[in-house]
């Protein structure tokens, strides 16, 4: 049953880059939790190590089953994930004003993270069936839009703006990739441009304020604006070569918010400087290009679109997260793949890597 060609085609390069990025992440996380004031949270580091192990196992599992099974059971996976989102809405743990987590013994899981992958799979199936060189018309996009919006609305209710927005971005990238018919695209853009000012007109004052703050954190100098300034100081103070491992002062004095999750890049940039940060970003770039190359090498639409979706997910997270901590993007809670603390995020990342490897090592089947 096991084909030797799988092993021959095993994508060692992708595995190497994943482990490299994972290694960067553990180093940064150690800095973030070891120096954390007031209480060092070293236990978090151990937990992340465990999640890493779990992630590798899940990655292997995702790699071994033929990805065409994902296509066949796409609807089951999708419905299962939506079910989990409904479940979390009712029975989820209430932490810090939102209901995102499902308790799993000592660990907890964010179904919204898994929903990202589910949307990618279900869209890949739909688009691969109906893709043509002319592109999709508005009519053809009805179902994908509904399939995207259902989990997005559920996640917005939690509320988790970051993940919901991310799913919309991933779906939009995939849709643009499979091409939208010219007139339909014009209609969508035109419609968007006319409704945005209309919606703005109907928003209440405080809602406008919230959106403006989201776009421009400086409007909230005591909240997110302050966090961004501290984050910029942390990154900037790293200068060329950084302050050295465990020497970051911004991090040690808790000037950074969420230093082990969303703002972990600031910790890394402070301690390793421009040199370290460039190395990380370039590694991410090579990883993304590698992933695109897998899509490039695949000769079967579902595989191509699936890989493209996973790559879009990981790249958007990289750009949004690093852009945010450097003050280029609005502040939203989007984790940095491989690096940020968080089991669900790491698990999703490794599922993505598993899917990429899966497609990569089966490309010979369609030659």
């Amino acid at each position: 049953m096991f084909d030797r060609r799988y092993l021959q085609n095993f994508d060692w390069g992708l595995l190497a880059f994943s482990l490299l990025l994972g290694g960067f992440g553990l180093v940064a996380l150690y800095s973030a939790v070891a120096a954390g004031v007031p209480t060092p949270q070293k236990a978090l580091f151990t937990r992340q190590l465990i999640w890493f192990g779990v992630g590798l196992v899940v990655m292997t599992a995702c790699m071994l089953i033929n990805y065409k099974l994902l296509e066949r059971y796409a609807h089951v996976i999708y419905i299962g994930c939506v079910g989990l989102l409904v479940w979390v809405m009712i029975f989820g743990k209430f932490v810090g004003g939102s209901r995102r987590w499902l308790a799993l013994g000592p660990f907890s899981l964010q179904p919204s993270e898994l929903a990202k992958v589910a949307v990618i799979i279900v869209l890949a199936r739909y688009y691969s069936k109906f893709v043509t060189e002319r592109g999709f018309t508005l009519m053809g996009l009805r179902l994908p839009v509904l399939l995207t919006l259902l989990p997005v609305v559920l996640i917005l209710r939690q509320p988790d703006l970051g993940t919901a927005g991310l799913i919309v971005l991933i779906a939009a990238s995939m849709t643009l990739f499979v091409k939208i018919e010219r007139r339909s695209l014009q209609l969508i853009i035109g419609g968007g441009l006319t409704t945005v000012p209309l919606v703005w007109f109907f928003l209440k004052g405080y809602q406008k304020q919230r959106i403006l703050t989201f776009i421009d954190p400086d409007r909230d100098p005591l909240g997110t604006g302050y966090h961004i300034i501290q984050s910029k100081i942390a990154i900037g103070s790293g200068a060329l070569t950084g302050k050295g491992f465990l020497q970051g002062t911004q991090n040690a004095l808790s000037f950074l918010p969420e230093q082990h999750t969303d703002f972990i890049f600031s910790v890394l940039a402070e301690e390793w400087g421009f040199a370290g940060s460039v190395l990380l970003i370039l590694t991410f770039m090579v990883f993304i290009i590698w992933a695109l190359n897998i899509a490039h090498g695949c000769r079967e639409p579902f595989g191509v679109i699936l890989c493209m979706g996973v790559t879009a997910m990981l790249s958007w997270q990289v750009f949004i997260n690093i852009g945010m901590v450097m003050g280029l993007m609005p502040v939203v809670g989007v984790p940095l793949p491989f690096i940020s603390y968080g089991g669900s995020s790491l698990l999703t990342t490794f599922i993505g890597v598993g899917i990429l490897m899966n497609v990569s090592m089966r490309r010979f089947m369609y030659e």
Partner: protein
Amino acid sequence: MSKYLKSIDSDWFRRRLTAQLICVALGVLALLLRLFYLQVVRGPEFRKLSLNNSIRLQAVDAPRGLIMDRHGELLVDNRPSFDLNISPKDAQPIKETVRRLSMALEAEDEDFMAKVADLRGAALLRPLLLKRDIGRDALGTVETRRYDLPGIDVSVRLLRHYVDGGMAAHLIGYLGEINPSELQCDIFAGCRSGDLIGKFGVEKSFEHLLRGQRGGRQVEVNASGQVVRVLRTVPAQNGHNVFLTIDGRLQRRAEELLAGFAGAAVAVDPTTGDILALASSPTFDQNHFITGLSRDQWNAVVNNPWRPLENKALQGEYPPASTYKILTALAGLEEKVITPQEVLFCPGHYRFGNRDYRCWRRGGHGQVDLNRAIAESCDVYFYQVGQRLGIDRLAFYAKAAGLGKRTGIDLDHESSGLVPTADWKRRRTGIAWQEGETLSVAIGQGFNLVTPLQMAVFAATVGNGGVRYRPQIVARVVTPEGEVVQERQPQVAGRLPIGLAVLQTVQRGMWEVVNGERGTARIARLKEVAISGKTGTAQVVSREKAEAESSGNVHHYKDHAWFIAYAPSEAPRIAIAVIVEHGEHGSSAASPVAREMVRTYLGLGEDLKTASRGAP
């Protein structure tokens, strides 16, 4: 599968992937450029900022809204508290500094030493609170010795100040530290642990309006922690000012009159439902809650048998006693089981079943019509009215008068009282209603329970011709700039299902109580203005037991004294309910309180002869 490949060319996908590649490259380029700008171009500058942790946030607390009475008299404001802080990093050598500080303030240095003894690590960088509220003298001392005391500074914080501590304490309420579960609530968004929020009274009910919005400043500090420049400021927003409906003078007078007793007095404007006074005795000084109570002080408050923390005006449930006869009379007339002219004979007791129900006047009242029955509070008359009505008809009118349920005043912990019905008793005890119990209920001595607030509203309703208003305590809420945010509108909670003629008959009886030849509250009479009312004497234990066990002098066996009233009789402007716990007779203990409150509120001069309270 091959059918897909026919419909779409792999090269088509490959061309589209190239576009993706370009997007990724552009994104990476943007990140790298930004990184270069932050770390290389501005790196040295940020390095310098990070060395001193130079950018800091300073909170600017928002003053809480003021509370005034209906005439604008200031009842609650904020006063500055000077807090002594030390920045350990700047105060080196720290022991020497603390010693000098203790000497300057003539205080024991051990307290301060203990606080700074085992500081290490990052804690050294944060200012530490040494002592709260040091007072202006100590402030002067510290300020003049600035140079001897490096790293010591004084911060100003606003503390809630109850101008006339203890006055209307139960109504105004007090603040307390926010607790973790409250911190989770949306309504406390923007609060942090350690913040003081309203915990009782108006301070709690109107928390959302009184609390301002904290502002803050982003500042750049130098190496010794002094502010070099202010980067950004978000101004604090003051809380709204609240004007209560109470009349400060009347409130104070009511509290004076109740001083030394446990009890409550409530005054309502019968034309609007405004609470004019809401006094519960004994009271407590809320300022102690702000500055902190010692364990002994706290125990003294909690273990006080007179329960000072309880708002007796709306938490206290008492038997209404004879004040309830007003209701029995209204029900009896409206249901036509009795006419104003019908005369019943009172021999001093009433035989029902195999039990004798006694009248408070042993010798009996003789021939009694309705007017006399109210004026002289004849029990035997009302036993018979109650018997004719039956418990459920009586309960219908009691409920229509707002008894047995909360009045809906904007204060927590309001009791609902109790209007007994046959059904209620069966559910509660499993035993059927005994008709004899109706007799006790008819004179307010059965299962029925009322709060003083309910009785004040009842008096107002009878006095104004049958309209029951929801009692309100806040007249208006204004912004610090004076713009009115909220203004109370009278809210009708219900109307008595009773004809005007019947009401007037009963009003006439209540006039007789005070102004008649043999009225039970002749002591409450004022020559300037006519008061109408009804006395009540609520038995704490059964009359037989009290007489058997003592000569009636044991304080706890003494009856509660009630008086409800409205004035002026012809067009009431104030309605009052007074209860004096263990005050014995409504006429002597409670009615003078109401009389003096009327005098104060209507601005009648002091009458030296009647100014002193009736002897209890």
